[in-house]
């Protein structure tokens, strides 16, 4: 258990009030303590975004790990012209996209087992059947459409922002959302997918 203790100490070691720019600079130079602080400050945000983009699947922790490993690699390229959150959002979207694309190649049914804990944890969430429908609908979209749709319709991002995050033209983002909405309309016309 010693290594765990050491890691826990590192995670909580950095001062709360240190500005992000200074922490980023230290982390980019290889300071693990600084990087741990970045992780502690941004992990929740990245995890929540991952959940929205890929759904409540069990691989989210692996994806979160991938996000921060990529962030660590990318930090030397971070110039500070955008906020670190935006930079991290871009990486998170990319990781989610890679995951969704890999999942499309190995299709499997909607991960209801994975969702069990979320679905049955309390009664406050969406009803189980409705959530399963939503997840099925999202799984039917292409990864590009799904990400654009969630960013637009769930997170209320504007098209230029989506284009910036995804790395595409605004028009492309707009078309992806339109295609997703069309699929939704089609689904609604046909009735419940169940």
């Amino acid at each position, binding site marked *: 258990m010693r290594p765990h203790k050491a890691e826990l100490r590192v*995670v909580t070691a950095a001062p709360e009030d240190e500005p992000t720019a200074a922490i980023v600079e230290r982390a980019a130079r290889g300071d*693990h303590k600084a990087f741990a602080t970045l992780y502690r400050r941004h992990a929740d945000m990245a995890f929540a975004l991952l959940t929205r983009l890929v759904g409540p699947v069990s691989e989210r922790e692996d994806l*979160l790990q991938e996000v921060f490993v990529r962030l660590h690699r990318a930090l030397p390229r971070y110039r500070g012209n955008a906020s670190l959150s935006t930079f991290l959002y871009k990486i998170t979207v990319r990781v989610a996209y890679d995951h969704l694309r890999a999942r499309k190649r190995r299709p499997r049914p909607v991960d209801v087992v994975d969702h069990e804990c979320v679905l049955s944890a309390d009664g406050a969430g969406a009803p189980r059947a409705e959530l399963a429908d*939503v997840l099925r609908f999202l799984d039917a979209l292409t990864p590009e459409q799904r990400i654009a749709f969630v960013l637009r319709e769930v997170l209320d991002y504007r098209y230029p922002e989506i284009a910036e995050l995804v*790395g595409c033209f605004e028009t*492309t983002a707009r078309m992806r959302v339109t295609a997703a909405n069309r699929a939704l309309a089609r689904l609604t016309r046909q009735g419940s997918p169940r």
Partner: protein
Amino acid sequence: MNRTEIRDAIESTVEPLSDIARNKVWHRIAAQLDAQQVEPAARPRRWQVPVAFAAGAALAAVCVVALVPLRAPERAPAPEVERVVLSAGAGQRAEHVIAGSEVTLYGPGRLEIEDAGATLDLALPEGVLLARASTPMLVRTPGTTTEMPPGVFAVRVHAHSTEIASGEERARALIDRRDDELDAGAPVTPQIVQHASPRAHESPTPVPSPPPRVRAPVRPRSKAPDAGTRERAASSGGEAADSEPAPTAAGEDAAGLAVSASELYAQAEHALARGDREAATRLLERVVEVDVTGRLAATASYDLARLAFDAGEHDTALRHVERVLSTDGEPNLARPANTLRCRILRATGQACPAR
């Protein structure tokens, strides 16, 4: 199911990251970063460097002297070469991913791929090859050997002649010991450089480019698994073969080269993502020229209008947006294009008449 319900459902799945999970993930990240971190080597003293070098050289010489006579009758073991054979009949295509590169063969044709490490060696006796290369490729066709840099390119072998189109970078073609170079940034479709095989003609002279052809819509592609395969023949009904509409005869051109406009558009997006607006503009203008179906051309025109508007070039922006509105290539663009037109007109102090 409407958007609000979807939003509520998705939001209901968002749960906070527990402290245990957060620390567990951090522990794994830290372990991964530690594993990646190269330990700084102890700085050697000055005298150690030549001494170590001399010792190493001496040891190598001893090994060579000791082993060469024993090894002489045998050939040095060749590095293991992964070899894949794809074949596709008429109307079929075969796809393969190797060393991070994607290759698609449109039949009738055959493609042999050898992964020799730094370069992929492709032999295409017949057929149409479309490749997205992440490593340099050596493409051998009858009478022609072409070195293709990483990027997107298409090669067609037809009646002992080879047509090569490079999507983004220079390619060097070696035809019967004669060097030739494809244009940099040549789009795939209209500027095909055709090399006649010495077998078919006495002197290989480039012939004029064929006019742009009508292209088939780009199909979504599924990649064939390649793990652990040493040799594979993807014939009809095979794992990597599709029986989609035939890219034969005229369709063959379309299948092999259809990707051009969309590939150019994708390149334009990449250029924009890395902040190279000039390249993005250039590539979008190529999309407008190349895309005969009109849909991507309209999209590219809208993007050009946006880029020009952002750069303060209102006349250019207006020209592009008018082109979007004058065609009916992409109906989804009518509304944003009208809005953009009004913004441009207002920026130039003009009224925006309703259309």
